[in-house]
């Protein structure tokens, strides 16, 4: 019994530079699928192409060739209003440096995707409060980002990413700017929302600790997917050990 994947990536290539000048092939044919409700990680060192890959998947950049579908919809050639609507409704994005609007409160930041989709004003407040409660940030809703800690900001960003019930949540080194305690809290949060809301999560990271929270890890090196690790029934700390061992041999 096979379920339809929430995201498919077929033969993705990305080459930088114009024809004639020095060209650099960042992605050399990426293939994988993400099942609904899956928590998947993409690991690689700097320069491996993981950020390039993430940009393709999140519609922030276009591949040179290949196809990506999310919720059975091809996304690589979406443009204009279609693209904007897709971004607002189907995907959520959490950046390393938070990317909250400093001129708006936490509440307003979280409500932004709803406002943009012209959600009736009456429905906005309960939706924001619900997701804020789930992420444990109700007491900060009227604060501005510069009054919040890094961990709190990321949780606000997560709430904003989740408010429209997206098909998939993308994270680009979300713990990169956090201290270890906040990082752990955030990753626990991801696990919780993955299980409770059944939202698929794709995490891009170079940090083995973050990767250990995933159910499946794809290793990317020099623009290609190499190994794949499945957590299966392993405990998180055992899986973490396996990741570390793998990294050691992977680098060789």
């Amino acid at each position, binding site marked *: 019994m096979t379920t339809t994947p929430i995201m498919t990536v077929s033969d993705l290539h990305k080459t930088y530079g114009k024809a004639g000048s020095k060209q650099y092939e960042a992605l050399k044919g990426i293939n994988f699928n993400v099942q609904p409700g899956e928590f998947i990680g993409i690991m690689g060192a700097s320069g491996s192409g993981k950020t390039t890959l993430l940009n393709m998947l*999140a519609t*922030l950049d276009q591949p040179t060739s290949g196809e990506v579908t999310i919720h059975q919809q091809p996304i690589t050639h979406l443009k*204009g*209003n279609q693209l*904007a*609507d*897709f*971004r*607002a*409704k189907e995907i959520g*994005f959490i950046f390393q440096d938070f*990317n909250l*609007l*400093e*001129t*708006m409160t936490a509440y*307003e930041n979280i*409500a*932004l*995707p709803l*406002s*943009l*989709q*012209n959600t009736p*004003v009456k429905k*906005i407040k309960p939706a924001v409060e619900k997701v804020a409660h789930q992420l444990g940030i109700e007491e900060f809703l009227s604060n*501005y980002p*510069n*009054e919040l800690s890094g961990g709190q900001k990321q949780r606000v960003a997560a709430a*904003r990413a989740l408010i429209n019930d997206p098909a998939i949540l993308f994270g680009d080194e979300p713990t990169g700017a956090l201290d270890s305690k906040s990082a752990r809290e955030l990753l626990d949060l991801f696990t919780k929302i993955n299980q409770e809301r059944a939202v698929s999560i794709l995490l891009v990271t170079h940090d083995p600790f973050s990767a250990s929270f995933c159910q499946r890890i794809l290793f990317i090196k020099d623009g290609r997917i190499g190994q794949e690790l499945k957590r299966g029934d392993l405990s998180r700390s055992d899986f973490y050990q396996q990741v570390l061992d793998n990294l050691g041999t992977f680098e060789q």
Partner: protein
Amino acid sequence: MLTKLAMTGFKHRWRDYLVLFSGLIMSSAIFYMFEALATNQDFLKQNTSISMVGLIFQFGSVLLTIITLVYIGYANSFLLSMRKRDYGLFMLVGARKSKIGQLIWLETLLVGITATIVGILVGTALTVGVSQILINSLGLTLHHFAAWYTPAAIATLLLYVGLFLIAGLFNLLSLTKTPALKLLHSNDQPNRPQLKPARQLIEIVVGVISIAIGYWSMANLKILQLMGIGIALVTIVLGTYLLFNAIFVWLMVALKRFSFAQRGLNGFTLSQLSFRIRNYTKMLSIVAMLFALALGAITVGMGFHSQIPSMANINNAYDMGLVNASTAEKAQIAAMKPKTTATYHFKATKKVVYFQAAEFNRQPFTTIHTRNKNQLTFNTVHNNAAKLQKSEDNYQLMQLQSGVMATATPVFLSKTAYAKLAQPEQRLTVFTTNNVIEHRVALNKLAKHHFHTTSPEQFGGRYAMYLMVNGMYSGLEFMGMFLGIAFLAMLASCLMFKILSGADADQHRYKMLDKVGTTRRQLNGAINKEIAVLFILPGIVGIVHVLFGLQMFKIIMVTSPYTGIWLPFLIFAGLYLLYYLITITIYRRIVLQ
């Protein structure tokens, strides 16, 4: 080596430098334009009959200097924030603080001097251009007007170089005293809009009282004389600043409570504004003042302009009167296609001029009877001989016959009585064209030909009156229109500069909005709305200032300064709208990719 690095930084940021330079050049150009009039004592004395004008201009200079001070303050902080990161980097790499200090001081001064010199040249060119357009299209005569006036250039140079020396020093201290790390991370962190209701209430009350005092003193210049202008200057500027400071911040925050704030990007726009306005209060106050000055100047200028033909027309029904016109002159008259022409024969002594009653019964003479001197309203009366003899306006006939200084009286005789007189018979030809101003060139030629002078005391009629009034009011009309245009240009460049200098900071915000899923239409809409509010707020305040400020001109204008104000207001609104459209286009190009 370091200088070379500094130069490459310059090339990278050419767009920012373009904004900076164009703002500074406009500012110094317009300051020069103003001073070209203000410092030219001969021009002021010869062109107005009002002794106050010189001092009014001095007040204006003070106001303009204050505006320049704030403007250069902004320009300087813009320059500094541009370069902070670069210079921080140099320090990190090991450049000496003293050398850095030297460089920034030099750069500030260089930017300043270059902008000022170019500005003075641009100002001169603009002065030539604008004055030519105004003189030709309005038919003005000016005395001692000089597009290049050295004291004005010197005043501009002194002020601007002085301010930039101070700015350079400030930048030097700022850079050398800040640790390198702080410079690298210098980023404008917006603060929560502080709402201290008690303080804001006081500001509002003081602001309103201040402005009320200003308005009152402008309306009562008769009592207060020059002091009134000084009081108005201080109180209105202060009041405007306090109002912007207090009311508009509160307004933006209050608007967020309404449900429309949660639709689309409205919440984002309101947030942008509530942070911006706090930052912008000084600039918005200045823009409001400049708006009022520009609109007021243009309204007054146009008011004077419309007065001139009215005052000419109320003087006499006929353009000119020629005694014993030659055939050539009659041909010149015919060429103007006059509405009416009439010829009357007369015989004159020193004190009396004898006409034939029958001629006036056949060709009635039209007189102008003034109904209301202040409104310049009148009736035209057609007179036969009997009526004309009794009319109190019959001096108008005499003016046509022997000039404005006519002292003789007219007498209308029967044909036989007239025939008995011994004096030689002469002919008086009078005529009216449809528009004195339209035919002014031909009328001028005719006057030169017949009277051998264009000195209006020597002949009478509408054209002579036009020359006199034009001479009196041309100067004021020119000043009004010229300054109006200059202030409008300065206002626009201030506002555009301030808005565009914030564009870079907005880039990453709009990128973020794009990632979260905003349509182009929503983004453009947000930009349009935000900038529209920044244009409209000072506009409204400026209009209110003008409506009250026109009170000041009651004492030097014959008609009410409010007559027909819809026209200059409309023109001004059109130009303001144009500036708005230009600003949003440039802003969009900088901020959206």
